[in-house]
């Protein structure tokens, strides 16, 4: 617990300035003051991937990442990947193959997939599985999520 400090960072391409406890996890800042609900709480311990975001294009766990370490950095959440009118290709592909049952894990899956596709535009099945291995899904939507990533890569 530390006194609030002023801080600026970029979230989904917009510069955001806050006065905030620098030890607060990014997840709480996104879901709270920034009103971005896509990034989800699952475990709080870097064990499930529900909270993944991109920090300068690299997947990072928002549940443990302190906001104070992110001054000047560039954050992308699912809201920044795409929208219903301008979806990211992984979002289009997930809808096309109906990847998701309860859907709770899907935000983290999209972030992991988007990062993979950015560095490897045509991954193999095992490369996709490896990239998503830190993301848990309890509903067993895995086959369709794998299919969605493969489809988005086409």
């Amino acid at each position, binding site marked *: *617990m530390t006194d609030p400090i002023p801080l600026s960072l970029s979230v989904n391409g917009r510069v955001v300035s806050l006065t905030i*406890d620098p030890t*607060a*996890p990014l997840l*709480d800042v996104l*879901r*709270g003051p920034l*009103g*971005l*609900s*896509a990034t*989800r*709480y*699952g*475990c*709080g*311990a870097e*064990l*499930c991937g*529900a909270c993944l975001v991109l920090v300068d294009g690299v997947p990072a766990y928002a549940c443990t990442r302190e906001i104070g370490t992110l001054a000047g950095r560039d954050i992308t*959440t*699912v*809201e920044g990947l*795409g*929208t*219903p009118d301008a*979806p990211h290709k992984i*979002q289009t592909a*997930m*809808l096309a193959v*109906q990847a*998701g*049952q*309860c*859907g*709770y*894990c*899907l*935000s983290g899956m*999209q972030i992991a997939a988007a990062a993979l596709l950015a560095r490897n535009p045509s991954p193999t099945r*095992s490369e*996709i*599985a*490896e990239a*998503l*291995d830190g*993301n*848990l*899904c*309890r*509903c*067993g*939507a*895995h*086959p*369709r*999520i*794998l299919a969605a990533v493969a489809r988005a890569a086409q």
Partner: protein
Amino acid sequence: MIANTLPKSLIDNPRLDRWLDFSVPGRAGIRVGKVEIGQGIATALAQIAAEELDVGLDQIDLTAGDTDCAPDEGMTTGSLSIEVGGASLRLVCAEARAIALAAAAARLNCGPQDLSIDAGAIAQNGKPSGQDYWTLRLDLARDATGSAPPKPASAYRVVGQNVARRDLPAKIFGGGFVHDLVRPGMRHGHVVHAPRIGMAIAGLDLAAIQRAAGGRVEIIRHGMMLALIADSPTDLRRAAFAADTAIGWNGLPPLTADQQEAAWLPTQPSRHGAHGDANQPPPGTRITATYSRPYIAHGSIGPSCAVAEFRDGRLTVWCHAQGVFPLQAVLAGGLKLNPAQISVRHLHGSGCYGHNGADDAAFDAAAIACLRPGTPIRVQWRREDEFGHEPVGPAMLVRQDGVLGPDGALRDLTTDIWSAPHSGRGGAGNALTARTQPNPCPPSPVAETSVPYPGAGTRNAIPNYAIPAMRYRHHLVPSPPVRTSALRGLGAMPNIFALECFLDECADAAGQDPLAYRLAMQPDPRARDVLTTVAEMANWSARGPAGTGEGLGLAFGRYKNTSGYAAIAVRVSVDTEIRLLEIWCAADAGLAINPDGVIAQLEGGIIQGASWTLKEQVLLDEAGIASRNWDRYPILRFSEIPPITCRLMHRPNDPSLGMGEATIAPIGAAIGNAASHALGARLRDLPLTRAKIIQAVT
């Protein structure tokens, strides 16, 4: 149709206007009690309504799970949402359509046979009549008679089609869950739960809790309840973690290591029930084997969440409970309110697969909200709360004792089932936080019986095969070390695991092929169909000898012996661990409302069941549940999931069968049989970990 043949949901909620209205021009407002828990029911029910009403799927506005306006359909459990909820909605919509046609015929001075409906507009001999559901101002304030015949399957245009899930876009674009609900002035609450029910606070360091939250947490003691409120979820979480160590608990003896195993159950006092053949087993070749599953977790990816608001004497709760009316009753009893003061609204949550923390989190939020009128309270359980305080899936131990005839066929089977209770719901006294309120209701006694259908611990205890004589004895252990309740399939998974592994052991003893052995005792053509289909998919006829390190196994199950059929084949390789190489499934759903949705359920059950089979066990320590995050409760990951092919039998003219739990049971036995084939040695105790494999081969 006479009234007593109506489906239960319609008998309980006969008024048509409870189910539907046409109050918004161009829209059909549909209300149901069965709720979306990731199984796609909202989409399938919308398909049924659109089909019978002859409106477009995009004209349906569906409200599911709302005590103020939707029908009371009890719980969304047991794969009954299509079989019962869907059947009810179909009759309601068929009747509304008939009422509309009769009203239009009267207005147009023609016979109903001259009329047809498309997108809700009524045509007379194919030409627009100027009438529609909205101009007719139908009187739906009347009871359903069930007398309007629904469409024949041959006329279906929406039902039976692959339809995209209606809820998925919102979830993919970042919303759609109760977790995302924000109310004006909302604060965050947490109830401190004892490590186990029955423990009481012995010592408390309030200053440590305050310190962790920088002094920004409000600490409430009410009866035996200790609750925290903060404006910021960050502060609240810090205070909650501080509370975990700032409180000493007493009141119960420490747990011992043996209590976490299913083998502990037969050492305990139990209640006995029996069913089946009363004679003694005949002479013959006897085979016995004992199988087990430990306690397992629901493991929802999103911990349970709810928002509650008490304002002007009314309590409103938004939550992801599987039954809004049962929860309304629990809240009323536990918080000493009148049910009429309470509105419970379902919003989507993370998949629950049974009785997870949803109801308890909702009660927590409600209990705090009642103490802070006017302030909406959001409770989001931490991962540690979900794993540590949800009711877990019961451990079970199943002993099979069979007699083979001279031809090797199984002539007589005696099954002994030891199980912790599968239903921990049952009234106000059973909610966690209800027990800490002033003048708490007593917990309900364990109500589980030993009936064969639908059963709980005895679910699927009766083999779905022609065995000349069988009997089971059910030993219900009412006081397990941890709270237990319903988890996907209830006893079906351990019972089918035990039966289908045992059938392979019998086939081995008889020197017969496991598939041929099953077919010889299977008269039901639909069961034979899925078995032979999956065998063909898996190229069963090329199955090699046992003990090569690679194995092929199969298993069959018909959930509750009344719902969906599924046969599964699995190919594995085993060294010190089991690796899944490929999985095939053939299933029979009768009329599949949304075939792609059914396939998704089959896949999901296969993966969850494979995870239970290979990895999962709730771990205990002296205080209670010790496996409180994913590092101590691993589940199957992407890299462990093989290609899976599911095929649905084409049976559009047979009634729809519930499919949500069709694969969760047979997958375990299919893996067990494949692994045993690979090893040339039997694995009988779940999970099938490295230690069990080493034990089996040495």
